[in-house]
């Protein structure tokens, strides 16, 4: 068995997806000749040619807009939005059309929108956003975020077989995360969370970059005698409430972790669901460990903004101490 990085797992999944489906196309800014600013699409244009892997002009709204047209024509477009903060020009096309076109037309819209997201990379403005809640809030879309190389591969392979649009958020701070896994790895179904670590004292729920952070916190908590159960959501919409509820029934305490600002973040949905579906099992309120209710700060201050193992453990202590 060899180790694969999360980034390379995505590259391989794209390669295998393009091989399996001759109608799959990869396009966006710098994805062709350069191979992507993170090198995720490296080698694909050479392997599949310029008709199937191509660079576009600098225009996010149309990168998504042409994906709608190509999907209606029978292709499976895999457009890339270069950075999270640049998805906003395409917001109208995604929410007004990608999410709604099947309802209008009855025609399948197999589009997989790839977006690197999240911070902790010392970047300039607009390169560290976590916009996933806007899209999870939009019916008609499916929204996923892998946390590991194996799941990055498996979730993308599945997304590439979906007849519905998928927004595929890639945790860019974890592109170099390594895992021992043989590719091709198993396909990961949408709507199924993963128990990343079993435990009995507190359920810690994360997705994308925060799963690794939660696991680090769990390792430290173990030394202090607390067994955290870490859930990797993998899929935001559809959401696997069954796995979340089963865990909370066992642990009676829940902490949710995401980089996006806490106010109206995706954690609010999880907390509301737990409150509604497992109220009787709770010994303490659900706590959200998330970004501050501010725009993402300048890089020098990002560590103060982002949830880290310390803040997760503080929340764990708070929920355990609740009387």
């Amino acid at each position, binding site marked *: 068995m060899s180790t694969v990085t999360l980034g390379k797992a995505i590259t391989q999944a794209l390669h295998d997806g393009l091989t399996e489906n001759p109608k799959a196309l990869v396009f966006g800014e710098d994805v062709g000749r350069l191979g992507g600013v993170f090198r995720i699409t490296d080698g694909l244009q050479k392997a599949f040619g310029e*008709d199937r892997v191509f660079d*576009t*002009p600098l*225009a996010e*709204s*149309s990168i*998504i*807009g*042409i*994906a*709608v*047209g*190509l*999907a*209606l*024509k*029978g*292709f499976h*477009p895999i457009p890339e939005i270069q950075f999270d903060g640049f998805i906003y*020009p395409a917001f*109208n*096309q995604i929410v*007004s*059309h990608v999410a*709604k*076109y*099947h*309802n*209008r*037309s*009855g*025609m*399948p*819209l197999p589009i997989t929108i790839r977006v690197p997201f999240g911070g902790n990379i010392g970047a300039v403005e607009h390169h560290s956003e976590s916009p996933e809640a806007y899209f999870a809030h939009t*019916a*008609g879309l*499916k929204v996923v975020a892998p946390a590991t190389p194996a799941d990055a591969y498996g979730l993308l392979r599945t997304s590439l077989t*979906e*007849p*519905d649009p998928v927004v595929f958020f890639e945790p860019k701070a974890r592109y170099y995360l390594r895992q021992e896994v043989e590719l091709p790895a198993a396909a990961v179904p*949408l*709507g199924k969370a993963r128990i990343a670590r079993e435990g009995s004292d507190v359920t810690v729920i994360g997705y994308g970059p925060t799963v690794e952070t939660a696991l680090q916190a769990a390792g430290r908590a173990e030394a202090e005698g607390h067994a955290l159960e870490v859930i990797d959501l993998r899929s935001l*919409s*559809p*959401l696997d*409430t069954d796995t979340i509820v089963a865990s909370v029934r066992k642990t009676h305490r829940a902490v949710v972790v995401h980089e996006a600002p806490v106010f109206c973040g995706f954690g609010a949905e999880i907390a509301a669901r737990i409150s509604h579906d497992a109220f009787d099992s709770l010994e303490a309120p659900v706590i959200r460990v998330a970004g501050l209710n501010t725009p993402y700060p300048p890089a020098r201050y990002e560590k103060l903004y982002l949830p880290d193992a310390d803040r997760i453990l503080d929340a764990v202590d708070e929920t355990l101490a609740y009387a």
Partner: protein
Amino acid sequence: MADVSQPVAHQPSDGGTVGPDGATAADDLQLGDLAPDRLCDLYAKMVRIRRADQEALNLQRQGELGLWGQFLGQEATQVGAVEALRSTDWVVPSYREFGMAMCRGIEPGLMLAYFRGLSFGPWEPQRYRFLPFNIVVGSQVPHAVGFAMGCRLERSGEVVLTVFGDGATSEGDWHEGMNFAGVFRAPLVFLCQNNHWAISVPLSRQTAGSIVDRAAGYGFPGVRVDGNDVIAVYRAVRDAAERARRGEGPSLIEAVTYRMGAHTTSDDPTRYRVESELQPWSARDPIHRLEGRLRQAGILDDAAVERAGRDAEATAQRMRAAILGLPARDPATVVFDGIYHNPPEAFRRERDEFAASLEASP
């Protein structure tokens, strides 16, 4: 405010057949190479869609439709453009191309479901090669470009006609789409129905430049035509479609016409324009002009005109009966079942809960 609808004062573009106010040099339609029965058919279609437009307006005033956006005065652009396409070509419309949809064979009564609040997609796009109405102004243009790029990749020989108004040419998506089409040599025809108004905003406030001249900036030809001359529109679209089909890329056609009615039935044009402004455009009514020309050429007579009128009347009555007779649909089906092609389990549960709640409280 001096924002009255004045013609934009500048030179006609190179290759254009009309000046900016839309009139042909001799206000006299050239019949070109179109056969007499073809010309009669264009006439009859314009009469039919105008009558349907009036009937839809009546239905709205009677409370049977929530909204209606008339295309009165724009019949030549709508009929001329669609009739110039092959049956295998595609149309990507905005929301005012009801006449075009009728020419494509879509049942008008069925289409009115859109305006009766019953459906967002009352027809099968693949069957008619006519994509759904698009209300987000200009945003259909990138869809059309992507679709055309797909046609090119498949070497299918299909051409895409995308239609929009003067207002849409201010939207970012329009400019992006035009640029993409030039870069990728997409086989499509951009057709602007320049009807001089975007609700209450006149052309002079929409742009300081020229719509047709923008094509050059994006790397392909543009031509301005008299949008109230069905033959001119037909020939321009036919030429542009064949250009695209030959692999020579996109074209822009600016069809100069006029929105004789209100933006929609929720609009009151008396607040921003005066009746006298419509006069020069009534004088160039597309249907009357063609009728006059064809009578002159001995191609149309009283009997033919009457026949067209009766046929149009029958269409309108059929349309009325069809929309009023549409069967009721199950709410859970309408609200939930079209959202995903492969609905997730959690979504299915929500749908079932909704259906159950309706049954519990009838």
